[in-house]
């Protein structure tokens, strides 16, 4: 099996598994209990918090454990909205291709009377600092822009956006779920006020995430109950997963340089190989993208059938077609970068990881070419494109 869906989730690292299991076995006390065994768990919890804070360039008091990226996004956005509302500021700036954890939260706020402005991300999938600058108004209470896109992997100019927000006195949140552990992140240097991350995207366990919130930002509680996380997030801490997350993050951050050095040539080889399939195009900027991310659209075919046939060849991948999302529309990310519906249905995301080899890449290229040709040969849409009954969307070959 070739696992090329690391943007969906990653294989847990051996050291993260060992740490998680060790904690389950030896440190099962409740950090809120006052006896020694509970306090040992409390120490383990705070140690994890310190280590994670260090990886992000944050202070331990600025780290709040959550169940994952979605919860962190929800809490960050609701908190900033509440702070804004108190001052009569109800304008929020974001982008059209955020994760649904952000977009659906913003939708909810819209119903509560907030004005949501979604910036265009252009054909290359990158928003510019200038766009943010000109969108900020006196009543803007939050700018929330993802660090790297989960589908097309494009990396946003976070530090520059952070600087503008700092100058204008607007809270800046970034959904960094795809970036942390893959790119160098430093919240202080990059002027980030709030950041969301998720452990299972960097070889940690599922069910653990972090909301970083800069000192001075009062968080709203989303999960109400006990006084855990300084009263900002109730519920007994998922300590085994949190310990695993800390170990995985240190490991991932330590490996960023070697990982990037290894993956970029493999990614480029994959892009070059797939570019030889006629009437196909890479989605998102060629260079400013995550080291492991490749995303293509192919004319004349539909993504779900492509995925099923790749699965038969032992390749795990994903697609932005409507059929794979269970919704009626194809990926909002691909639509946001201007892909028409008919090619957005024919998209393929391959996200490589540490274990990917050059042989894997060559096998993926060969398999995708075969499957695309096979599906095109039974596609009446493709026949119409070839016969000139419908206009091609892409050039035969792009450079």
């Amino acid at each position, binding site marked *: 099996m070739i696992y090329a869906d690391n943007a969906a989730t990653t294989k847990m690292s051996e050291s993260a598994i060992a740490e998680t299991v060790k904690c389950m076995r030896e440190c099962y006390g409740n950090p809120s209990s006052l006896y020694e065994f509970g306090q040992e768990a409390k120490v383990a919890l705070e140690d994890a918090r310190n280590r994670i804070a260090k990886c992000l360039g944050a202070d331990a008091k600025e780290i709040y454990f959550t169940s994952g990226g979605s919860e962190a996004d929800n809490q960050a956005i609701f908190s900033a909205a509440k702070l804004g509302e108190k001052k009569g500021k109800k304008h929020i700036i974001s982008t059209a291709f955020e994760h649904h954890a952000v977009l659906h939260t913003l939708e909810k706020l819209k119903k509560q009377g907030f004005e949501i402005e979604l910036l265009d991300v252009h054909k290359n999938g990158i928003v510019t600092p200038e766009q943010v600058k000109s969108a900020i108004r006196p009543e803007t209470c939050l700018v929330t822009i993802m660090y790297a896109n989960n589908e097309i992997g494009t990396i946003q100019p976070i530090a520059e956006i952070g600087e503008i927000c700092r100058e204008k006195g607007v809270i800046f949140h970034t959904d960094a779920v795809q970036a942390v552990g893959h790119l160098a992140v430093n919240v202080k240097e990059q002027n980030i006020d709030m950041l969301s991350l998720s452990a299972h995207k960097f070889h940690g366990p599922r069910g653990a995430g972090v909301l970083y919130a800069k000192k001075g930002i009062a968080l709203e509680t989303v999960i109400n109950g006990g006084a855990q996380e300084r009263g900002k997030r109730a519920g007994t801490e998922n300590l085994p997963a949190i310990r695993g997350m800390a170990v995985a993050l240190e490991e991932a951050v330590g490996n960023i340089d070697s990982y990037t050095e290894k993956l970029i040539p493999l990614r480029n080889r994959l892009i070059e190989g797939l570019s030889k399939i006629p009437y196909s195009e890479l989605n998102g900027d060629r260079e400013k993208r995550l080291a492991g991310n490749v995303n293509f659209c192919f004319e*004349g*075919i*539909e*993504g*779900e*059938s492509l995925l*099923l*046939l790749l699965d*038969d060849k032992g390749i795990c991948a994903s697609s932005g*077609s*409507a*059929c*794979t999302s*269970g919704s*009626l529309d*194809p990926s909002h990310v691909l639509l946001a970068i201007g892909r*028409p*519906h*008919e090619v957005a*249905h024919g998209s393929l995301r391959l996200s490589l990881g540490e274990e990917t080899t050059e042989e894997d890449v060559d096998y993926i290229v060969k398999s995708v070419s075969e499957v695309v040709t096979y599906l095109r040969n*039974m*596609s*009446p*849409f*493709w*026949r119409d494109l070839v016969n000139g009954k*419908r206009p091609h969307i892409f050039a035969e070959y792009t450079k």
Partner: protein
Amino acid sequence: MALYSEKVMDHFRNPRNVGVIENADGVGEVGNPVCGDIMKIYLKIENDVIDDVKFETFGCGSAIASSSMATELIKGKPLSEALKLTNKAVTEALDGLPAHKIHCSVLAEEAIKKAVKDYYDRNGIEYDKGLFPDCEGCEHCCDGH
């Protein structure tokens, strides 16, 4: 639990009757590329019997499997019988489809009806217009486009 039944996967992996009939007696196409599925059915008709049938499909696994199964169900059958083919019969023959994929079997039913109607129209054969409701196949998926 797999996404699809074994029957669906079999018809998806080894679709029956894929292709084109040159000089077909009736052709029916439904769906559109914006929605992500198009089915095209070609019929060869002898003495009111479907002598041969081929299909081309742009779409997901269940769309390909539904077309394959539908063509199997009408091959060699009189037109009157082919017109009675329902999406439910296609779904049942495939051992079921996930709820959000039922429209694939609807497309198959509609593509066949459209191909038969095309045959009637070409040959000036009278028919009951009620047999062919004004369907463009895709209304299930294309709300809002």
